[in-house]
């Protein structure tokens, strides 16, 4: 049974590599909303503040909010990249994250090498990697280009490869950023089918998006983030009505 549980979940980014002193003066003179100084007198950005939610089996959640509201940070936190600074997080179920399709891609290696590398990133065995290679090969439709360095790919080809690599796994908890909405029409049709399949296969979907149509179509629930806090949380139609 997949489940996500967040209790007073907070993430703060210390601003290390800026001139903290002058910045501090500037931001603290105005009533800053998300920048503040912490106990060690550093300037920190409150990326997520005291989030409380439970996502149960079968729920498909859209994360809505403006740029910088904390959508991607929340996805990364759920994926285990950022450890919570405050509060508690529990994720039950194998996590699959489609956050950045190109992460970990070696531009100088060929498509085929990158697929095998992705297998290693996931911790797959040799045999599993070979199976993955075959699946990605057929889904991406890149054919002979798989033997060419990825550097030479067009944006669309790159997306095909990344998408195919990202979606061959069938995770229980799927975290998705909205990058998949680019690509040529023919591929997008196939991509949507594949995504729909994945989304139905997963026990939990958390999707960060600006696209309200997609949100309405795929999700049952929405969490509206604003400035790192939950502004609204509930059935998708109710949240969208006030969005």
């Amino acid at each position: 049974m997949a489940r996500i549980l967040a209790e007073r979940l907070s993430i703060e980014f210390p601003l290390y590599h800026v001139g903290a002193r002058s910045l501090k003066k500037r931001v603290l003179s105005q009533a800053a909303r998300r920048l503040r100084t912490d106990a060690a007198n550093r300037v920190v950005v409150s990326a997520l503040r005291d989030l409380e939610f439970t996502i149960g089996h079968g729920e498909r959640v859209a994360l809505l909010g403006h740029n910088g509201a904390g959508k991607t940070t929340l996805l990364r936190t759920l994926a285990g990249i950022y450890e919570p600074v405050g509060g508690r997080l529990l994720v039950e179920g194998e996590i699959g994250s489609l956050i950045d399709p190109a992460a970990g891609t070696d531009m100088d290696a060929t498509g085929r090498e990158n697929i095998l590398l992705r297998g290693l990133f996931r911790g797959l065995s040799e045999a599993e990697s070979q199976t993955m290679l075959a699946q990605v090969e057929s889904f991406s439709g890149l054919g002979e280009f798989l033997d060419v360095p990825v550097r030479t790919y067009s944006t669309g080809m790159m997306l095909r490869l990344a998408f195919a690599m990202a979606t061959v796994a069938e995770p229980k908890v799927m975290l998705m950023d909205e990058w998949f909405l680019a690509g040529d029409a023919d591929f997008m049709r196939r991509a949507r089918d594949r995504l729909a399949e994945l989304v139905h296969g997963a026990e939990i979907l958390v999707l960060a998006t600006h696209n309200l149509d997609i949100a309405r179509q795929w999700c049952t629930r929405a969490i509206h983030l604003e400035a790192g806090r939950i502004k609204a949380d509930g059935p998708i139609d109710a949240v969208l009505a006030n969005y």
Partner: protein
Amino acid sequence: MPGAATAPPEGHLPPAPPAAQAGPLPPPGGRGADGASRGGAPARPEGETGLLAGGSFYECDASQPRRLERAMADLGTGLRRWRLAFALAWLDIRNRYRGSVIGPLWLTLSTAIMVVGLGVLYAALFKLPLVQFLPFVAVSLILWNMINQIVSEACGSLIAAEGIIRQLTLPYTTHVLRCVLRNIGVAAHSLPIILVVFAFCGTWPGLGGLMALPGLLLLVLNSFAVAMLLGMVCARFRDIAPIVASVMQIAFFLSPVLWKPELLGRHAVWLPLNPAYTLMETMRGPLLGEPVSTLVWLSAVSFTVLACAASFAFFVRFRGRIAFWV
């Protein structure tokens, strides 16, 4: 009002999970939570701790960070998955020489030129016969290059992996191991030079040369510790890398790389305090067929233990912050 609006539709919740987990969570800091959350986990696979994302569950509580266990899990997983670090290191070396005609042989060639050039020059300066001095210079320079490379690349072991760290959940150990393996790969390209120089000068360490292997082990352990420690420190404080570079430059002149330790005379007693020297000497001595004093071994082992301990302590304490630093 974030708390008030978080009631998901009842129908979607799992029917009746084990009470120990489903009940309201104890207040942060409550010691009892640890036992309860770990004990009541019937569905979880054997041996899985949930300390790192990537398994079938993941748990992180800021009030009970369990840093030591997390660091151990990171090290264990990272070392177990060495194939990934190896593949990344191999791609690093390959990409560095992409499109070049003789490729990584440039590594061998440039080292060879330096060994011959400095060997001839310093043999003349110190008025030593070339066949006697060249093996010393060859082994010294190659070992020093290895140490120097590792230390300077250690500063970027985590910063260089920024793109991966912020997007994929991997043990940090993988990035550190990648840096170490890459440098071992680079250093291995210089081995033929040592063989050629030995053949040319007619020296051969014989079976005693195998005694260099424990020294190599110490060097690798140190590389890993240094790559982890400096990788973290340099990710947090970006001024450390240039400092390290200039320290290494001074260390080159202060260590007996081009000059023999005997030349120091009565000041040679201070040499065991130089970790770069003792670590180098544990390998150089056996390769050149010279005895290595117990004091040198003792110093090399102590520095290794110290480096590993410092690095491990840092890793345990600050592992969770790395993603925010890079």
